[in-house]
């Protein structure tokens, strides 16, 4: 089926097979391998993407469901200077990345949270990450990285500085 959608700020027109997942389509047809294939049954969140700004699991969508939507994967997150975002920088600095497999999904889940709630408490951060599993870090460092980013963005907003 011929579909048109926006992938990481670029419009794509392509023939998508009807009977494969969006996860397979992104990874194997479009080479977007930052989307990870973990459990394939909607449990682990490694394949999470932002679909029209909402966090969803790409293993639970069919490829043609991308039609007309805007998709952001980890490849689409970038600071204004083209480098790492503040959240990505905090993941590194706070030890929130070990094997790294869950990291793309975690960072997208963090961005989805901060877009809706710029001042989350610990509980709200935990709830926002409930659909993303990490087998290495024990989550504490991931919560820390998101909390630190939220604090920093708040401080920049109040001082009028651009993030």
């Amino acid at each position, binding site marked *: *089926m011929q579909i048109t959608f926006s992938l990481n700020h670029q419009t794509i027109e392509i023939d998508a*097979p*009807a*009977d494969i*997942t969006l996860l397979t389509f992104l990874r194997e047809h479009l080479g977007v391998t930052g989307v990870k294939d973990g459990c*394939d*049954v*909607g449990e682990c*969140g490694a394949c*999470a993407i932002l*679909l029209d700004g*909402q*966090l*969803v*699991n790409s*293993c*639970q*969508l*069919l490829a*043609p*469901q991308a*039609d007309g939507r805007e998709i952001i994967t980890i490849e689409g997150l970038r600071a204004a200077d083209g480098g790492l975002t503040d959240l990505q920088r905090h993941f590194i600095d706070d030890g929130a990345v070990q094997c790294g497999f869950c990291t793309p999904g975690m960072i997208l*889940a963090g961005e*989805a949270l901060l877009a809706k709630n710029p001042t989350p408490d610990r509980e709200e951060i*935990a*709830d*926002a*990450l*409930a*659909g*993303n599993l990490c087998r290495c870090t024990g989550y504490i460092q991931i919560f820390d990285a998101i909390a630190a980013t939220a604090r920093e963005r708040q401080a920049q907003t109040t001082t009028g500085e651009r993030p």
Partner: protein
Amino acid sequence: MPRFTYIRPQTLDETLHLLAQPQKRSRLLAGGTDLMIRLRYAAPDFDRIIDISRLPELKIIAREEDSIHIGASVTYTEILESALLQDLTPFFVAAARQIAGPQIRNQGSIGGNIVNAAGGADMLPPLVCLDATVQLASKQGQRSLLLTDFIEQPHRTRIRPEEVLTRIIFPAPQPETNAVFIKLGRQRTKAISRITIAAMGRTDARGRISFMRFVPGAIAPRVQRFTAVEERLLGELPLPELFRQAGEEAVRVMNALTGGRWSSDYKIPALRTLTQRALAAIFSLQSI
């Protein structure tokens, strides 16, 4: 050769027309959070997916006179962000908030939760509590069924192959009614329910219980009101001893419905305690 094709109709009429085509085995896709997982384990038993996730007719949340209408493709996130539902049925919103994690709540639909009819489907107890009906449409026309009649047993409903579940409709609760939803899972979030309780109640001018609905979830083969528990409470003063007796009654009803099970050692004390907790929450909120 693809195993199946995909089509996304723009209107409900077009959907009903597609479903009425006898030469195609069609399967409706709304949230896909159950369907996509089944596809991973079993070959598709259909030729064509009909995507109804964006049908405008199925995305409404509205009050029409004294009834609340929720479109079948409305997601859990849309339910819990609805100001109307937060205001009128906070216990129903609480049930949506406790489903799975953010991704599933952003994708999964209330219609899917009902039609999939899992034994632990969390939207069912509050909807049964609210006396919900489901509206079904086909090329032949529309029909409405009580939700309790629509679901026959876990994973089996009375929907026909050519039908779409379009809306869930329930009367707006009276303002002085209090309601709770309590969920017990194996972990705090992302858990499949072991036991839930949805309950609504209010007292009259003399402080006696004058209205009561009590619906446990995930413990009986069909979600239903425990009317014996409701009758035990009606006309009485809402006091801890009464709540204790109601808990015993709830256990008696559960045992009569299910017999002894491997999980009974866990579920009996859990149901007893949750019943008391639910009733205490409902009637302490009430200003007497």
